[in-house]
């Protein structure tokens, strides 16, 4: 049965494993490690490092993955990197809500998987899709007015030097292919 929620909520949510080679991930981590980083510390909303990414061109090779998953012509509109270490998190009410239906593409650049460090996509607060911490993977999720996500708390039982590194790209449909809602 198809519900109205299915129609107006996120319709695309998938994880593609092993998209990024470890050497490419290492190169990107090295690039972002030297980029200006800000620590977000308003802990009622989140605790994490954020790196704004202004040069979007190097990530154009990732767009076809999203295009294949969505059957839309897409362009990268913005990008940022989040780094989470033990004790870090990003709560759902701190997440951005989108009026339209852009595609979020999350590239996992972590060195190694960290148990429990997931992204939970929520529709009206209820988790509908969990993205595991899987280095090299790319998650493709359609956002929307009722969709938020949280980056789960990273346990302090992990060694203090481990980190989750996520490159988050926001893709918008080109004007000719913007999807209608209902």
């Amino acid at each position, binding site marked *: 049965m198809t519900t109205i929620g299915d129609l107006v909520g996120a319709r695309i949510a998938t994880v593609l494993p092993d998209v990024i080679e470890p050497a490419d991930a290492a190169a990107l981590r090295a690039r972002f490690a030297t980029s200006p980083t800000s620590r977000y510390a308003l*802990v009622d909303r989140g605790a994490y490092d954020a790196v704004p990414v202004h040069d979007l061109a190097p990530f154009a090779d990732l767009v076809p993955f999203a295009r294949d998953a969505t059957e839309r012509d897409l362009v990268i509109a913005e990008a940022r990197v989040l780094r989470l270490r033990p004790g870090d*998190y990003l709560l759902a009410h701190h997440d951005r809500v989108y009026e339209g239906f852009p595609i979020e593409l999350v590239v996992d650049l972590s060195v190694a998987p960290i148990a429990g460090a997931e992204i939970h996509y929520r529709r009206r607060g209820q988790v509908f899709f969990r993205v595991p911490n899987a280095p090299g993977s790319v998650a493709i999720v359609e956002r929307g007015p009722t969709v938020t996500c949280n980056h789960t*708390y990273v346990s302090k039982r992990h060694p203090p030097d481990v980190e989750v590194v996520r490159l988050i790209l926001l893709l918008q449909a080109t004007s000719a292919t913007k999807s209608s809602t209902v």
Partner: protein
Amino acid sequence: MWRIPDERDERDDAWRTARPFPHVVIDDFVDPAALDELMTILDDEPVERYEADLYAFDATAPEPTTAAFRAMRAAFLAALAGPLARITGKVCTRVDLRAYAYRVGDYLLPHADHQDGLDRQLAYAYYLPSPEPPTGGELELYACRADAAGALVEIASAAIIAPRANRLVVFDVSTISLHQVCEVTAGLRLSLSGWFYP
């Protein structure tokens, strides 16, 4: 069962001067001879798992399932209402009481407890004896500054209270009473917790 002074003592001043926001810590809150009775009451109370982006823990239902637990809640309110009115200046006529179990990896991230319409005026946690006392699980209080719209714009850790067995912590509830339960990294943190209402 509950040991809280009926007459004014240093804790009255401690409430007013506590930083970052009003709170009071009362150790040896339950008569040791009554602790077994208390734990026996809790033995039969079922717990469920609660997980969200903000928390992960086990807890009993909002409403106690046994008559003994409900009676303990009533006795707790009866014993605390008078002293809390004197210490905090707030008159309480109702209380929530649930048992919480934080296992290894459990936590409750920073939040303020205040919600419009809920009338929570005081929060409390009473730490129960644990078969394996926890590492972590501290109550961390934050100093906050809010902007004109009420959004917190500066937050800094300001106090850490260890979850010592038989310790009661009562703290003010407001839009800036930000606090968290730090992750339990070993052992088991058991508590009774809830809010007092007008």
